[in-house]
């Protein structure tokens, strides 16, 4: 009968027959519920400018892209556009300009696996991001997490399996179903760096690829990753204020979650962020990935039968604790950078400053690791607090040494300059903000527009899913 047919349709995975699988709208007719809930990630559109919230950041990241522009994450709907818009990716004028490498697209689009498969992974990872501007045009979608044909969960990028193997963990294929419900997220919500790899293309040209790599060989901990980077001699940038060689941590969301109680007890990302939802007699995974505090009745209540307000208050208290230690560590790190600058000014040598910079480098790594995945205060409250405390210890050790160095050079009672607003902090960091915005606007008026035109012509652009996608950023607030 009809109902039964509906049930069968709903519960067996049709083979997705369309050709352009990177366009999520093509999946809609097979999986209407998942599609329409996925589209709702659009609702989370608010930009929270972290450099306004925590101006210290610009000091910590002086000399690096993050000091220019850095926001809290919003819905997957905006992932691609935010990558294009952020001042970090600069204002390319052709396929070869732009400060950033192609690797930056990796976690923003299902066009990436398509291109990797077509051009080869190393070719994909070679060159500037503008190279693929006209081809990578669809935001995170079905093909990012699902097999193109069977719709089974699938990791579409090879960097995750390589990291799992390095860490001695089962690959995606060998993992349990429940772990797969984490691992599709761990394609992206992980700490990474770009490993330089020399290679020779089929025409014999020597090239250098910058390959997304996860530092997991010594385990998925803050200590393990630090050791990894120190062993391979990696540094992301030199802080412009203090001359310290810095490691940048990016969203080790999966790694920290694993240390938390939910991770320990096998509750998966999808359990909270994609709670089952009932529509009529069908239960399906809600694909509107968002803050689960918006969906507590489905995300928390099946496991915790309790009134939502109480539970929310408990979560909020976790945030407050984290924030207190977050501010302490960040403030002391910022001061340590500025005090080092003073020491340099009055003649301290690199040799004198070596122990200081070692402390700052390590302290900033710990701090960043703890906070870069914003929700770690909930995913792993204890580990987050521990790491922040150690970060602060290191920052303070640097500052103790700095008083001595400064005294030796005749400076007593030095107080670091004020960095209490985004403007002040960016000035200290030497960020030419207005210039960056102007260049970006020029790029958006020209090259970016061309990209979408080409993509549309090639049939790669999912127009339906670009609606209202470009209305907000930290620097244009008057477009709507």
């Amino acid at each position: 009968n009809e109902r039964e047919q509906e049930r069968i349709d709903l519960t067996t995975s049709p083979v997705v027959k369309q050709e352009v699988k990177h366009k999520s709208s093509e999946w809609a007719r097979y999986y209407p519920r998942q599609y329409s809930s996925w589209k709702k990630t659009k609702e989370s559109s608010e930009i929270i400018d972290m450099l306004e919230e925590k101006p210290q950041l610009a000091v910590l990241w002086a000399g690096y892209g993050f000091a220019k522009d850095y926001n809290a994450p919003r819905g997957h709907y905006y992932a691609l556009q935010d990558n294009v818009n952020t001042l970090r990716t600069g204002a390319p004028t052709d396929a070869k300009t732009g400060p950033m490498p192609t690797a930056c697209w990796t976690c923003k689009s299902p066009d990436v696996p398509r291109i990797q498969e077509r051009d080869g992974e190393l070719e994909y990872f070679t060159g500037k991001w503008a190279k693929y501007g006209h081809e990578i045009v669809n935001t995170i979608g079905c093909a990012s997490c699902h097999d193109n044909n069977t719709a089974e969960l699938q990791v579409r990028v090879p960097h995750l399996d390589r990291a799992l193997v390095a860490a001695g963990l089962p690959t995606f294929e060998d993992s349990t179903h429940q772990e797969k419900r984490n691992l599709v997220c761990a394609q992206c919500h992980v700490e990474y760096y770009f490993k330089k790899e020399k290679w020779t293309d089929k025409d014999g040209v020597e090239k250098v690829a910058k390959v997304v790599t996860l530092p997991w060989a010594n385990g998925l901990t803050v200590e393990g990753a630090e050791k990894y980077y120190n062993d391979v001699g990696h540094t992301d940038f030199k802080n412009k204020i203090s001359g310290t060689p810095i490691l940048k941590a990016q969203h080790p969301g999966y790694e920290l979650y694993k240390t938390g109680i939910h991770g320990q007890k096998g509750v998966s990302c999808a359990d909270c962020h994609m709670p089952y939802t009932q529509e009529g007699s069908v239960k399906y995974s809600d694909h509107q990935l968002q803050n689960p505090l918006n969906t507590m009745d489905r995300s928390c209540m099946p496991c915790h039968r309790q009134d939502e307000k109480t539970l929310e208050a408990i979560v909020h208290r976790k945030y407050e604790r984290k924030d207190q230690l977050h501010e302490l560590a960040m403030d002391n790190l910022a001061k340590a950078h500025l005090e080092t600058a003073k020491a340099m000014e009055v003649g301290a040598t690199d040799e004198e400053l070596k122990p200081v910079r070692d402390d700052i480098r390590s302290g900033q790594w710990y701090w960043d690791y703890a906070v870069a995945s914003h929700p770690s205060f909930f995913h792993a409250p204890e580990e987050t607090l521990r790491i922040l405390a150690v970060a602060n210890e290191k920052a303070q050790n640097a500052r103790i040494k700095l008083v001595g160095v400064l005294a030796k050079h005749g400076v007593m009672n030095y107080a670091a300059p004020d960095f209490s607003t985004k403007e002040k902090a960016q000035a200290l960091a030497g960020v030419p903000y207005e210039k960056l915005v102007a260049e970006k606007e020029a790029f958006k008026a020209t090259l970016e527009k061309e990209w979408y035109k080409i993509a549309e012509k090639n049939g790669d652009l999912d127009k339906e899913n670009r609606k209202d996608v470009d209305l907000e950023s930290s620097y244009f607030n008057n477009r709507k």
Partner: protein
Amino acid sequence: MKEKSTLKILAIIAFIIAAIFFVYMAYIAKAWSYLSKDPKACINCHVMNTQYATWQHSSHARDVTCVECHLPTDNFFDKYKAKAVDGWNHTLAFTFNTYEPAMRISDDGAKRVQKNCISCHESITSTLTSNADKYHNFKDDYVANGRKCWDCHKEVPHGKVRGLTTTPHNLGVKEVK
């Protein structure tokens, strides 16, 4: 071949001994209650009070009895085989006091319960079961790849606090005769 028939004989002897023991202990522990569908039969053993009390206060108390979750419901033979096995195990445990205050369900028991959850809540679980089917794991295939319904529905139907001695209000249960 020879080994096989020795085994057979041994099995038969073991069965006879077991049967005698079974009758004896079944008598001591009123194990015939397993033949009944009435939940009150379970609390012939006070050690089942906790589960009775929690179930009694749950959404399942109105329509669903113990055996509807805990015994195979698909065919007559499985059902009575399970009753016999359980009756035997529980009687043994009860008589010899080998259970622990926080009893836990056996793997086999969990397998059966899960089957029953799914059979009652068929349509609503179809997405889950089909998701699970895709990642069919032959090592642990009975409960949807290790995932049990009550991993999420933690309090269905026996509540959060469940120990022989810990569950509130399970003392008076015995009076429900």
